[in-house]
């Protein structure tokens, strides 16, 4: 038995406390289990993995359900029963062990199941339990009290990234035993990432037909450098693991190219430091959890590392440089930005060529001091009417053009491109309201292409 604990501790560095605690509650065959345990902590801190391997290692009958996969409580109930009863779903008929529409059916069938197989000391694991909050109100309290409700000694383990305090319906629930899976410290992360050594070594061997062998110390040193750049921004193991693998290949590059010796840690650092910093900027940008994308990316990395980085920094700001807008559309967009970020009462002062000089009064100075922190550009775009847009458009445009249907079409194009958004759904042109949806950086780039100094016309900068 203790060998299981030791094995788990070795597989999951930094989880000693959690493993021991769980083992002390579930590790002894004859002892009754507690009715519910609530496990919480940030993502990829080993919650699912530790619980899963412990239950399997102890050969405890269990049903693990990830609530992300349950679009209705019916699916949840039936999946639990299928797993506990060992029911094999016939792929042609697809009948579940039993149909359950509600908690009453579930408990009835759970008892029925208990007559057929020994459910004594079995465990139900509800992963991503925070989802329960958006399901039927009675699910969370019912699962917390399942033992009392069913009269069976079935325990429930909740796994959640949200603390228990944030669950509603606490009043009628009993407090479960809570186990916190804390985020890993830098040392722990280093230790865990080092477990990837074999994997990384194979990867290197398979991808570079070089007679080239890295040792563990070389990899550990790299991880130290890697964490010195990344740890401050990110503590998520899965993300770090992904990034560390990608960058390790680049770290080794100078060695393959014979530009650097394996032992030349200074030279390797000089080479990798800018690369690490660049890739820090694409952290989390492989947002999609679909493994497809992960694969694709690593393929690209193999052929040309530098380019991939560029590709992924492709953001809305750089979009501005590539976007080919007609000349007037650019001015319309600029006018929209100005309308969104200037209060209307300032229009006169900003855009009229011969407005009376504004005399600074004490009141203004004071007011300015107070709000100095709260700039209009920080508060987001304000809606503006069609007329104001046209007025500003003419004010900033040096030449005279007729306002024709062509310009109207350009406005709708801007809306289609989601550079503008329509605030009211009104079809009436005069009462339509718009907002400008581009960032300051974006509009700056657009302004430059038409030689327009936007800061001159923004209240925030005057």
């Amino acid at each position, binding site marked *: 038995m203790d060998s299981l604990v030791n094995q788990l501790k070795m597989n999951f560095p930094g989880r000693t406390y959690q493993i021991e*605690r769980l083992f*002390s*509650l579930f590790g*002894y065959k*004859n*002892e*009754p289990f*507690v009715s519910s345990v609530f496990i*919480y*902590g*940030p993502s990829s801190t080993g919650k699912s993995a530790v619980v899963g391997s412990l239950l399997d290692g102890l050969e405890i009958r269990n049903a693990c359900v990830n609530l992300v996969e349950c679009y209705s409580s019916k699916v949840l109930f039936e999946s639990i029963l299928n797993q506990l009863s060992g029911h094999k779903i016939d792929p042609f008929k697809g009948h579940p062990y039993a149909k359950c529409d*509600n*908690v*009453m059916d579930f408990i009835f069938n759970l008892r029925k199941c208990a007559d057929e197989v020994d459910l004594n000391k079995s465990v139900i694991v509800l992963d991503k339990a925070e989802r329960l909050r958006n399901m*039927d109100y*009675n699910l969370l309290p*019912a699962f917390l*009290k399942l033992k*009392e*409700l069913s009269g069976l*000694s079935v325990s429930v383990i909740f796994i959640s*990234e*949200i*603390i*228990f*305090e944030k669950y509603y319906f606490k*009043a*009628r*629930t*009993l*407090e*479960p035993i*809570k186990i*916190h899976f*804390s*985020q890993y*410290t830098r040392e722990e992360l280093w230790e865990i990432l080092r477990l990837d050594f074999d994997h990384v070594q194979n990867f290197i061997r398979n991808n570079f037909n070089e007679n080239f062998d890295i040792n563990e110390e070389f990899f550990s040193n790299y991880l130290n450098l890697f964490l010195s*750049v990344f*740890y*401050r*921004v*990110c*503590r998520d193991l899965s993300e770090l693991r992904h990034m560390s693998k990608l960058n390790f290949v680049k770290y080794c590059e100078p060695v393959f190219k014979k530009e650097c010796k394996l032992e030349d840690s200074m030279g390797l650092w000089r080479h990798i430091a800018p690369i690490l910093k660049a890739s*820090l*900027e694409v*952290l*989390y*940008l492989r947002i999609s959890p679909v493994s497809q994308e992960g694969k694709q990316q690593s393929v690209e990395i193999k052929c040309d590392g530098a380019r991939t980085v560029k590709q992924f920094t492709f*953001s809305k700001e750089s979009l501005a440089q590539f976007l080919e807008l007609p000349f007037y559309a650019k001015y319309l967009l600029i006018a929209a930005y100005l309308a969104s970020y200037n209060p209307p009462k300032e229009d006169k002062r900003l855009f009229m060529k011969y407005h009376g000089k504004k005399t600074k009064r004490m009141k203004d100075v004071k007011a300015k001091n107070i709000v100095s*922190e*709260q700039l209009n*550009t*920080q*508060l*987001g*775009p304000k809606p503006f009417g069609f007329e104001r847009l046209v007025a500003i458009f003419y004010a900033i445009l040096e030449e005279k053009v007729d306002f024709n249907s062509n310009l109207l079409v350009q406005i709708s194009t801007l809306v289609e491109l989601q550079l503008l*958004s329509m*605030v009211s759904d009104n079809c009436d042109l005069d009462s339509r309201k718009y*907002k400008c*949806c581009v960032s300051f950086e974006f509009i700056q780039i657009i302004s430059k292409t038409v030689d327009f100094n936007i800061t001159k016309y923004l209240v925030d900068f005057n």
Partner: protein
Amino acid sequence: MVGYKNYENTRLHIKNKIVNVDQYNGHTHERKQLLDILKRTTDSGESNSALLIGPPGVGKTTLVNSILKELQEDKKFNSSAVLVRLHGLIHTDDRLALKAITSRMNLDNAINGKVFGSFAENLSFLLACLQTGQRETSKSVLFILEEFDLFCSHHNQTLLYNLFDVSQSAQTPICVIGITHRLDVIELFEKRVKSRFSHRQIFLFSTHGDDIAIPSINQRIDRISNFLLLTNNNDFSSTYFAQWNKNIKQLMKDKKFICSMQRLLDISENEEITKNIMMLAVSKLNVEKPKISADDIEDELNIFEKDDLVQTVQDLSVLELCLLIAMKHHSEIYDLQPFNFEMILTRYNKFINANSNVQNVQRSVVLKAFEHIQNVELIAPTGTVMSRLQKEYQLFKLLITSQQITEAIKTMNGLPTEVIQWAGSSLA
């Protein structure tokens, strides 16, 4: 080897006692009151209704279970009464409740295929089935409704209306006991339901037990020592048995231990928490750790009392923490006014610019960090989330106090000094 068996048996013995409580101790007055009400229905055929009210975990269910057990020990009970237990979390509407009542009364066959005009008709048919004419052979029905307040939200309170209505008329003798933690449950009744309820309420609080002279802390410690004392010496060597029990008796008098128990009682009347803490303390027993000490209990209590929100903050990355500090400063300066990403970013950038040694990261990465803070629910959008609004401008409010953030930073390891200083500065 013997020591090994002893500690394993101790764990098993105590855990069994903690998990399978069926005896109720204390509250003898309330217990007798409830028992009498039920007996009047089963023995003399009087109908009645009552509510048992008390905070969660005070022992309502345990009390009712122990009473029912006592009733069922009487051989006559099964021939003279039917027990129907309903639970607000299971029987979430009256249709389900009626289905459960039917099957509990073994009347599934009798009702087969019958169509009833109304709920009342259906219920009275069920109750009539139990009547065989003579008073001696007809059965009384005991209804126990757990999480009673939830039944009040059923459509038109039909079930409650009908049950209370029957309990007021001279038809079948029934007794309706509602169990709830809501003190204001009567306010939830519709008028017609309220007027049919007997207004008998039994309150259960751990703070006023039967005997005011015995403080509730002593009663609770009594219950704990019942858990921890070994009672069956067949499973243990006699010296071990004596030593263990002596040790527990000492523990029960230990100042530190009593202090912890008082602390726990002050936090909550929920006895389940105490049981969890005992369970965890017992679970820690092993060959190297053969005894339970007052320190163990205190450790568990400290873990229990830890502020989860503070822990959530400590699990953040330095970048995320910096954003949280910026939010804290914003809230302090603007008197808890909401903020958006742009404002926080500006404040954060000021900090970065003042500290040349800190590497800046791209806006998109900062935005991700901001979103992470939202995902762990340290902040929440204010008002309606407008899909048309760009997320950078969506206003948020903090769901954590400045003190909690300060507290988290104080006990966090390995934070860069400039961050600690920035967090501490009052005007950033």
